[in-house]
């Protein structure tokens, strides 16, 4: 070994690592979850169906908002300004770009991805396999600095998700009602909100960028609040990923008629 | 005779030591335009000062506006039992606030008061909350701040000269083994690099000693390996004198368990912030140990003591915050009387006095230290603590204003200098001492240089001598048995700890002196294996000579002073004796440092206006009648 830990002058130790703990667990499990999500989302996004449960008024977050004339009736909560979407494009491509972009540029997912998918590094003090490394200093990875724009987008989408959640309190007889799906949607929205608000870009924007908190007491309060959430950003990232998949899968199953939604009332 | 290569460097000022005192001295010398070197045994920024926890005393009056230099001066003199060099105590009290504020301009971030000023905390012996602090890592903040100030000066030099080290260079992991003189004046210093074992020579007319203390001669100590008394020994061998060496401070609260961490400090800040000492019966025993000289100044009931934390104007402070010597002796007595904790200490309880969050916020490193080293959660369990060797009040005898020793060109500041703290140092007075007298030592060296007609020179034979002495441990004795430096060190520590420790007796100190004679003899045969590259056995062999010499001073002075005062407690002379108050014990040695001698000398009487700062009734507890005839209280009678 000539490079890295084998570079001239350093202690000459042939072993890559002496770590005896379970350092492989994190990259393996995280990698598996990430790959599963990528596969699932890709498949789902090209299905172009079963995203709206018309009776229960459940809209899956993966297709929300549905803005084109291709959308099934009822699923377009904000009209259909987009016209027809060509068949080769997934009709939820805007949603997909924003959500995937938000997560893809998220500081936590970056860490998770670099560690598990790129092994840069797989675990601390374990040599990485790459010959050269410039990190996020050069194109294309320097683009990750645009994360805040995805955050703004995600914030808009979070509001839309809240609206969708309100609509999911739709009773079968037209009035107010609630099913298991509603609960799932609510939990998902809560997790999405926690994930979005705990974002590092958010933390920076609400107050982190200031030099003097004491001159901006209100922003200091926001910052303190976001900072508290931010400590658990990684957890929210993973939990919300799982809740999104579960919510989507549930709504898909209801929409496809594989299961019937259990109603709590009406 | 060895053939040696010696790298040579010429500087205007060489500062030995990169602790608070050394860094401050170097900053000053460089700012006055002198080419300055800083030499340190460890890496830059690791000096012992990083370990200081509680705070830095300065009467800024941010928390209690009644505080001022006079109150600080009085507290310092009382703490030292009036044996202090009063001029140093005066300068210290007057200049400390400016020096602390100066640190802010270097970038220090102390904890703040509500109105945005530097917050100050209570500490033993200080009348008002006075210690500027950062949680419990004040020393780290100070050393980092000055380290970064030095970097910023180097950046300025880079702008001007294209070389960061043009005016100010740090020599890390470099140990000075000898000072070299030209006639009676300083002309240089001899050193080795710890990593390569290679030698260097500093040609310099002015040296500032800032090497810290001597605690590594004792077994149970809060001090790090650096504290081998190098500066003390270098000064002695260069012909300078040490004073007050019998006064060694045993900090009342060191960790006692597990054994491998025994001695590590538990900051006084724990008590300053509300922690109390209890014995095994749960009693807050300090109420029973308020000595006569402090009667009336401390709370006599738990209720009053507790009220004091909130309202200091109408209550007296808790006796848990008596000066350190008192608390250390009290703990010692409790343990001896069988009321100690399971591992031979007493309990220090903060868990029942503050909410867990608050403890973690105010004392983060203590929380951390107990959690990681002893498996004790201080937010729910009491700590076990006992006395640990912490600080040496004694040191190089210096001129208060210039920090100059009796040897021209040799200056000393910080723990290695003596006098300022008298027989006992108040907590927090060391960090302020470092910056006040560090700066003064820098200035002293500068004005010495400015008054110097020609640069002193170094004779080659002195350099060869120094080199030969440095490599001597590699020569295995031709006859007799080679000695292991680690063994001798361990025996020295045990003997000093047991026989010249917190409580002393004539026979025991005498025994220690006998042991020292034996160890000194054996130390001549110390031999080490291996090469000169980073060889800890060799390093220890060289440090050992210093420890032995300095220990001899401590023991001899301890034997001579037949009274108990501050950091010197004689079981056979338990009382304080006014006749001894203004007597200094002065230690000196021969050029090779083979033998130390101690002689008594009177101290200069306190300037009248300073004496007037005290009530006559208080002075009467310490002074002889003759000494007080000038006091206005008397004169009026």
């Amino acid at each position: 070994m000539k490079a890295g830990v084998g570079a001239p002058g350093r202690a000459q130790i042939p072993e890559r690592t002496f770590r005896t703990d379970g350092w492989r667990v994190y990259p393996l499990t995280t990698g598996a979850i990430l790959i599963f999500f990528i596969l699932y989302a890709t498949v789902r996004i090209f299905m172009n169906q079963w995203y709206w449960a018309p009776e229960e008024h459940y809209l899956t977050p993966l297709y929300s908002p549905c803005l084109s004339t291709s959308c099934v009736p009822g699923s377009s909560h904000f009209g259909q300004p987009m016209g027809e979407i060509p068949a080769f494009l997934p009709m939820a491509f805007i949603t997909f770009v924003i959500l995937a972009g938000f997560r893809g540029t998220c500081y936590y997912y970056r860490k998770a991805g670099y560690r598990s998918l790129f092994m840069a590094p797989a675990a601390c003090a374990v040599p990485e396999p790459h010959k050269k490394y410039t990190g996020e200093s050069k194109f294309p990875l320097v683009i990750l600095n645009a994360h805040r724009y995805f955050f703004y987008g995600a914030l808009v989408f979070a509001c839309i998700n809240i609206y969708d959640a309100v609509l999911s309190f739709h009773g079968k007889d037209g009035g107010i009602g609630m099913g298991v799906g509603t609960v799932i949607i609510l939990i998902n929205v809560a997790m999405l909100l926690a994930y979005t608000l705990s974002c590092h870009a958010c933390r920076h924007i609400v107050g982190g960028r200031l030099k003097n908190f004491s001159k901006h007491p209100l922003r200091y309060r926001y910052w303190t609040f976001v900072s508290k959430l931010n400590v658990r950003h990684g957890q929210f990232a993973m939990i919300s990923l799982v809740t999104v998949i579960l919510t989507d899968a549930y709504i898909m199953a209801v929409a496809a008629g594989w299961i019937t939604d259990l109603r709590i009332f009406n | 005779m060895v053939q040696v290569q010696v790298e040579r460097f010429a500087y205007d000022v060489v500062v030995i030591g990169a602790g608070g005192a050394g860094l401050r001295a170097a900053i000053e010398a460089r700012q006055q335009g002198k080419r300055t070197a800083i030499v340190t045994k460890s890496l830059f920024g690791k000096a012992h000062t990083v370990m200081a926890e509680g705070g830095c005393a300065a009467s800024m009056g941010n928390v209690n506006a009644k505080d001022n230099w006079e109150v600080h001066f009085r507290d310092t003199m009382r703490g030292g039992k009036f044996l202090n060099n009063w001029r140093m105590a005066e300068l210290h009290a007057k200049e400390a606030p400016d020096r602390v504020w100066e640190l802010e301009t270097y970038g220090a971030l102390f904890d703040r008061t509500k109105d945005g000023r530097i917050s100050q905390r209570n500490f033993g012996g200080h009348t008002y909350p006075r210690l500027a602090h950062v949680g419990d890592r004040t020393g780290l903040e100070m050393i980092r701040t000055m380290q970064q100030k030095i970097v910023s000066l180097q950046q300025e030099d880079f702008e001007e000269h294209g070389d960061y080290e043009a005016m100010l260079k740090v020599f890390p992991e470099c140990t000075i083994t000898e000072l070299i003189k030209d006639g009676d004046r300083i002309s240089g210093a001899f050193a080795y690099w710890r990593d390569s074992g290679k030698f260097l020579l500093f040609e310099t007319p002015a040296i500032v000693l800032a090497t810290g203390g001597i605690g590594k001669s004792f077994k149970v100590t809060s001090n790090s390996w650096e504290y081998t008394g190098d500066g003390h020994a270098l000064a002695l061998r260069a012909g300078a004198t040490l004073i007050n060496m019998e006064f060694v401070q045993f900090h009342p609260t060191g960790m006692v368990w597990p054994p491998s961490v025994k001695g590590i400090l538990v900051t006084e800040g724990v008590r300053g912030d509300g922690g109390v000492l209890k014995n095994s019966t749960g009693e807050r025993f300090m109420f029973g140990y308020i000595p006569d000289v402090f009667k009336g100044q401390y709370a006599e009931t738990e209720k009053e003591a507790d009220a004091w934390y909130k309202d200091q104007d109408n209550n007296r402070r808790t006796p848990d915050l008596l000066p350190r010597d008192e608390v250390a002796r009290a703990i010692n007595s409790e343990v001896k009387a069988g009321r100690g904790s399971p591992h031979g200490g007493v309990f220090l309880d903060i868990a029942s006095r503050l909410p867990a969050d608050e403890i973690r916020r105010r004392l983060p490193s203590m929380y951390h230290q107990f959690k990681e080293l002893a498996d004790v959660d201080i937010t729910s369990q009491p700590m076990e603590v006992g006395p640990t060797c912490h600080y040496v009040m004694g040191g190089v005898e210096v001129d208060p204003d210039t920090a100059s020793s009796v040897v021209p060109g040799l200056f000393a500041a910080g723990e290695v200098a003596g006098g300022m703290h008298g027989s006992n140092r108040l907590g927090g007075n060391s960090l302020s001492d470092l910056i006040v007298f560090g700066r003064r030592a820098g200035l002293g060296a500068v004005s010495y240089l400015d008054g110097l007609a020609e640069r002193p020179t170094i004779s080659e034979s002195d350099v060869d001598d120094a080199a030969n002495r440095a490599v001597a441990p590699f020569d295995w004795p031709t006859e007799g048995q080679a000695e292991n430096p680690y063994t001798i060190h361990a025996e020295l520590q045990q003997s000093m700890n047991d026989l010249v420790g917190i409580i002393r007796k004539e026979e025991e100190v005498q025994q220690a002196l006998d042991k020292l004679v034996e160890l000194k003899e054996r130390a001549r045969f110390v031999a080490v294996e291996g090469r000169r590259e980073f060889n800890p056995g060799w390093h220890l062999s060289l440090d050992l000579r210093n420890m032995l010499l300095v220990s001899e001073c401590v023991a001899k002075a301890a034997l001579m002073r037949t009274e108990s005062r501050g950091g010197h407690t004689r079981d056979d002379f338990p009382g304080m004796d006014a006749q001894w108050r203004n007597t200094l014990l002065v230690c000196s040695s021969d050029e090779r440092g083979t033998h130390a001698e101690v002689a008594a000398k009177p101290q200069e009487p306190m300037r009248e206006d300073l004496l007037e700062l005290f009530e006559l009734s208080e002075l009467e507890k310490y002074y002889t009648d003759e000494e007080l005839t000038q006091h206005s209280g008397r004169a009026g009678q």
Partner: protein
Amino acid sequence: MSYKGNFKVWRGDDTSGGLEDFVVEVNEGEVVLDIIHRLQATQAPDLAVRWNCKAGKCGSCSAEINGMPRLLCMTRMSVFTEQETITVTPLRTFPVVRDLVTDVSYNYQKAREVPSFTPPENLGLGEYRMKQRDVERSQEFRKCIECFLCQNTCHVIRDHEENKESFSGPRFLMRIAELEMHPLDTEDRTRDAQDEHGLGYCNITKCCTEVCPEHIKITDNALIPMKERVADRKYDPIVWLGNQLFRRGSHNKH
């Protein structure tokens, strides 16, 4: 409560070296540094190790224990089983001097390249006013004991010697963050963080945070906020436009 523990300690210098086996006594409550000291006193008097305080305060005793960068003096023996063989090596990112001692001068070089605290000109001694909540962020970073474990762990230089030139490492990127968050500092180092100190190399994989013995949240509280500040300055056209329109100058001093 004492037992014989098995150790492998790397010994050597910059030309050669290898692991040496030792069997040493281990007592209750001891830390790895105690064991190294016992080795020195009994079996290997010239075994080189750097340490000072033995209390986790000075950051001298950094090494790698069972492959993890740690402080020797803060790693208790009780975290290992009695049967376990404990491997102690020097830091593997810096040149080795001897045995467990490495040459960490890279760090001091990088420290010099960060523009220092620049005080406001109009304030004299004792006139600084800062609120606790304004200094708290920087205070967290000032807990740093400069053990350089984070520097050692960071794969940017650990695995890529050539990046040492352009990357200052988490410790000094954090130093920049500390100064940028200092309420009274007047210098602007944001662009430099990216262009001169290699903030972009950091891929926020958090190993620095994982090994920091002071538990400083280096990545979350220093590096990511700095990345966001850099984005403000270099990659965010809206913020740029805002600054132009509202003439905020080049710096966010409000």
